[in-house]
């Protein structure tokens, strides 16, 4: 009797299709819709025009000479800003973990402030506001950019490092301290090496974001040899050829910088991983 019941339930009711059969039909419909859209776009597009706008050889030739210098500038600005951000971020992270409440409050205030305002505002501040207000001139554009972007990214890096340090189990600290190591030795030899592995992926992410944020310095008055990628791409827009080609070219160079970074992280994670090093 129970077998009959099961049979009636499996095949009976109003549902004529089994769930698995229905899922297959739905998937088929989704493929059909995709094919229809692709065909429609391909037919409707004026390919000659697209080719001219995106892959214009003349526009590409006009910009290609500027790209290496701009790419180098982008990398230099990124590294300089990351240096400032990492140093300041480490100080802020330690302040956030400090047993002194005033330090924690200051660090939290800093992080909330610079995470909450647009980076472009800080770039303007260092480009025009600070020099005007304090009557100083930055001799080095790299320093100016490193300070502006580094101060912003320090807020993000501080949070990343704090989380990494806190992710190291408390037992590690207790083991080190019970062996007589001071809190400084414990931090240096036990906590930081383990935290480093934990923060590596989010820190790479930070460098990628920073690479893209260097585009904000186009708002500063730069000399031609100081142009970074976005500035070069933007200037080419108003050139004779115009079109999308220059932006596409610049975008590709950004990818050439950012994508290998993920590879580098994976490699670093592997080499600092299983092998114990003294």
């Amino acid at each position, binding site marked *: 009797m129970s077998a009959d019941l099961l049979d009636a339930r499996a095949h009976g009711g109003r549902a004529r299709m089994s769930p698995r059969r229905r899922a297959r039909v739905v998937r088929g419909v989704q493929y059909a819709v995709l094919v229809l859209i692709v065909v429609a776009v391909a037919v409707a597009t004026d390919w000659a025009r697209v080719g001219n706008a995106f892959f214009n050889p003349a526009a590409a030739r006009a910009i290609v000479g500027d790209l290496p210098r701009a790419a180098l500038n982008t990398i230099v600005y990124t590294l300089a800003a990351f240096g400032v951000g990492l140093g300041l971020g480490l100080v802020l992270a330690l302040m956030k973990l400090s047993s002194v409440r005033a330090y924690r409050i200051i660090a939290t205030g800093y992080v909330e402030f610079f995470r909450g305002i647009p980076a472009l505002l800080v770039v303007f501040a260092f480009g025009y506001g600070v020099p005007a207000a304090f009557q100083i001139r930055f001799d080095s554009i790299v320093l100016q950019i490193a300070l502006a972007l580094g101060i912003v990214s320090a807020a993000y890096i501080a949070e990343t490092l704090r989380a990494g340090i806190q992710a190291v*189990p408390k*037992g*590690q600290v*207790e*083991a*080190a*301290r*019970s*062996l*007589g*190591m*001071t809190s400084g*030795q414990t931090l240096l*030899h*036990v906590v930081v*090496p*383990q935290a480093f*592995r934990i923060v590596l992926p989010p820190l790479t992410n930070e460098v990628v974001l920073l690479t893209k944020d260097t585009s904000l310095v186009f708002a500063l008055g730069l000399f031609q040899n100081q142009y970074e990628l976005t500035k070069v791409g933007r200037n080419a827009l108003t050139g004779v050829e115009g079109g999308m080609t220059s932006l596409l070219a610049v975008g590709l160079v950004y990818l050439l910088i950012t994508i290998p970074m993920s590879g580098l992280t994976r490699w670093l994670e592997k080499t*600092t991983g*299983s*092998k*114990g*090093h*003294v």
Partner: protein
Amino acid sequence: MSTAPATPSVPVASGATVVQITDLHKSFGPREVLKGIDLAVAQGEVVCIIGPSGSGKSTLLRCVNLLEQPTAGTIRLLGTEVTDPDVDIDRVRTHVGMVFQQFNLFPHRTVLANCTLAQQKVLGRSKDEAEKVAMRNLELVGLADRARSVPSQLSGGQQQRVAIARSLSMDPALMLFDEPTSALDPELVGDVLAVMKDLADAGMTMLVVTHEMAFAREVADRVVFMDDGMIVEQGPPEQVIGAPLQERTREFLRRVLDPTHLRPQGDPAGEHVEP
């Protein structure tokens, strides 16, 4: 081989008191975990602390090397009052080894480096000397052949033995064990207990929090039964485990030795079934 040479700076006479705990109190917020503990451990003595979970055993142990700050009372370690804020606790800790339930080996370093790190950084030993001491102690725990492994390649029992070797490499005058076998698979417990027994036989002063009644009975010079933040009863193992004077001790031992409560109880007063 005779282990536990006290470092020259802290001479410990045979039979001298290594730890002297007086009226120790510890509170976590409003909750008082230790309610006035008095306990002394003599040179070469092995003291096992038993008792139900939450009775304050681990907290007591962690107070001895100041991983927990006592709320009140005094602790004298090797003649130094460690509760005095002027005492350099880092120096005192170099004379006290501690073995944790969760091993707490440094996962980013090899077994050998785990044993040499503090020797080099804290005692200022050369790399060669530190490695020699480490290898001697790894040999003692039977893991000299795993010196180049990293902790994740070892079983729990092996990791715990490395943790013991790491502590021994500092030449401690006292070893603290905080439930060293509680996180181990049953078949791995024996190796760790065997190492601890060797250590006790070699004359190491040991304070051991444990649930291993057979170990306490065989190795301990004295067993301390704690409940609710107080020492209820202490004495030689034959007394505390074999013929306890206090009803609370009897009840605890009944539960530990017969966890299922399936065996009929001789004493009707002890008819206590966990829900």
